[in-house]
């Protein structure tokens, strides 16, 4: 089923843009995440550094007060500290873990205090969560003369780093916003680039292909680029020129062929015209034969007859006999002319074909030859069944009449002569045989007997040499042939071969 390629199509451009957007989003997201993580780590380090510094500063300031045990001073320092920095909780502990000063009195419950409880000997700074940084920093008095440092106490601080977290979140937001803006800005640019680099050459190729398919063989796609599409364009263009070249060759070959055909047709029509002229000449000749040859013959016969009837009984017998010979010769000449006319008309004037039952034709012929057959003691045997053929009735009657007549005329047996007629259908051809047991035909005569005026060697038998030529000519009209098989002394068999398709009644009717 043909599918409309335009329906529900997701264009190459859309696909490319989606891909591009995905890539940009991925890259932007990844870089935002990377940047955010880096900045947070840096910020936390800075925060820790800052906490360490302010705690050490507080420790230095509180050292003397701790030595003196001045609680008021330490409390004062804490209060100042809390005021100066974003601190949730700050306290100064003595070396034996007593609280010297605190921003939140011990009587108050606070979640922060537990974050920084426990003994402190080394500084520890821990980011509890995004908003909270817990630091325990020992206060150490350094020995000035290479002795052991003395632990004076410790400072516990819980810093509020929510400001830092807020700033980070804000920075992250900005990065994402910038990323989105970059994507939005990149979209049209990407479309432009994709269109320029990929789609335009592809469209050019598609248009050129369509033009080529429509038969515009001079079309070229004009894709010029230094990439695979450019290669494709070059390949297309060379294909188009190759097609154009081959088409040109085809056209010129065709023209040559047409010229040749025209030439041959001309020659053929000339030959046809010549043939027509010859046919017309032949027709004229036939008219001349039938008219001009017969007219004097008619007069000779008529005059002879008139003499005989007018002078009946008053003429010598010899004169009457010679007049009879004249009439007989005229008769021979007349029937010879008729036969020649008929022979020449077989091809040029086909008769209407009708269904002829060979069996009834044979019994008919047997009737008309009855006298001769009986007089010469010849038996005519018809081997049934014989087929019915779609042929020219009179001419086929003539064919078998001639064959049987020949067999009778040449029969040399005083008795026991046989003429056998049979037929069979073999490989799409009817084979109809007329066989006799007469003297046979010598091999050298077997071909020439079918030519007009050429007779066999036995000139005793009256005949004019037209009969078998007529048989041959009639049979040839049906793409058939007639052959003779004979061995001198053993009779002769004439076989008529007719293709079934040209002579079978049902087949012919089916064709019509």
């Amino acid at each position, binding site marked *: 089923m043909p599918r409309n390629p335009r329906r529900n199509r997701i264009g190459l451009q859309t696909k490319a843009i989606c891909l591009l957007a995905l890539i940009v989003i991925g890259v932007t997201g990844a870089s935002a995440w990377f940047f955010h993580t880096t900045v947070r780590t840096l910020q936390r380090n800075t925060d820790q550094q800052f906490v360490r510094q302010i705690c050490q500063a507080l420790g230095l300031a509180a050292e003397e007060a701790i030595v003196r045990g001045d609680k008021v001073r330490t409390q004062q320092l804490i209060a100042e500290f809390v005021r100066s920095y974003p601190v949730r909780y700050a306290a100064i502990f003595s070396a034996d873990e007593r609280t010297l000063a605190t921003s939140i009195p011990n009587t108050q419950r606070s979640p922060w205090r537990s974050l920084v409880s426990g003994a402190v000997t080394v500084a520890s700074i821990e980011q509890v969560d995004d908003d909270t940084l817990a630091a325990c920093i020992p206060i150490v008095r350094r020995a000035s003369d290479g002795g052991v440092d003395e632990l004076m106490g410790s400072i516990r601080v819980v810093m509020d780093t929510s400001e830092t977290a807020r700033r980070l979140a804000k920075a992250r937001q900005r990065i994402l916003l910038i990323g989105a803006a970059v994507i939005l800005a990149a979209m049209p640019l990407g479309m432009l680039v994709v269109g320029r680099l990929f789609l335009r050459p592809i469209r050019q190729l598609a248009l050129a292909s369509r033009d080529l398919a429509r038969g515009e063989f001079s079309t070229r796609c004009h894709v010029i680029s230094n990439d695979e599409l450019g290669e494709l364009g070059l390949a297309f263009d060379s294909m188009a020129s190759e097609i154009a070249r081959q088409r040109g060759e085809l056209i010129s070959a065709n023209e040559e062929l047409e010229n040749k055909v025209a030439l041959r047709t001309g020659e053929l029509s000339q030959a046809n015209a010549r043939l027509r002229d010859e046919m017309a000449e032949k027709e004229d000749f036939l008219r001349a034969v039938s*008219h001009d040859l017969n007219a004097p013959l*008619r007069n000779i016969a008529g*005059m002879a007859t008139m003499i005989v009837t007018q002078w009946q009984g008053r003429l010598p017998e010899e004169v009457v006999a010679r007049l009879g010979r004249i009439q007989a010769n005229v008769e021979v000449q007349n029937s010879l002319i008729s036969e020649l006319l008929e022979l020449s008309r077989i091809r040029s004037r086909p008769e209407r074909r009708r269904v002829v039952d060979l069996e009834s034709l044979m019994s008919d012929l047997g009737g008309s030859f009855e006298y001769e057959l009986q007089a010469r003691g010849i038996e005519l045997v018809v081997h049934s069944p014989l087929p019915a053929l779609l042929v020219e009735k009179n001419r086929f009657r003539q064919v078998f009449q001639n064959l049987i007549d020949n067999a009778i005329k040449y029969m040399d047996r005083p008795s026991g002569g046989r003429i056998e007629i049979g037929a069979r259908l073999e490989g799409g051809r009817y084979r109809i045989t007329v066989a006799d047991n007469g003297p046979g035909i010598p091999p050298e005569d077997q071909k020439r007997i079918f030519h007009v005026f050429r007779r066999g060697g036995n000139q005793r038998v009256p005949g004019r040499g037209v009969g078998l030529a007529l048989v041959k000519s009639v049979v040839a009209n049906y793409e058939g042939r007639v052959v003779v098989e004979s061995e001198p002394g053993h009779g002769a068999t004439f076989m008529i071969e007719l293709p079934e398709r040209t002579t079978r009644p049902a087949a012919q009717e089916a064709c019509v």
Partner: protein
Amino acid sequence: MNSTAIESLRGLRGLLVVDDDADTAALICEIIRRLCPEVRITWARGGVEAIEYLRRCAPHGAAPRPEAVLLDMEMPGMSGLEVLSALAREGGLRDIPVAIFTGLDDAALRRRALRAGACAFAVKPVAPERLTAVLGETLARCLAAGREPRP
């Protein structure tokens, strides 16, 4: 030849035979004279001669008009078909029955002759006995057609 045909020929008084061959014409005349002894036969050697003769006959002229014309086809000068159409064009000659008697056995020619007004078309046989029979039949057919009123 059947008896009615012979009877109809017995009444024949005048006949014009048109044939360029003198021997043929003589033969035809002799045969017809035997068929109808009282007939007066005129022979014309060609079409022009035949038409001139017919113009001299009644009702225009003095000579008795033939009851039928036996016309050959192939003649020098004016052919049988031309004679037929010339007769058809002339008012006084249009109703003379004309039988074609020719040596040409041609179906197309037969059609053209009958369309041109011939009342019969026969091919001259060579054998004398056939010639007599065909001639008699043709003339009888032609006379029968001539006695019927023309459309």
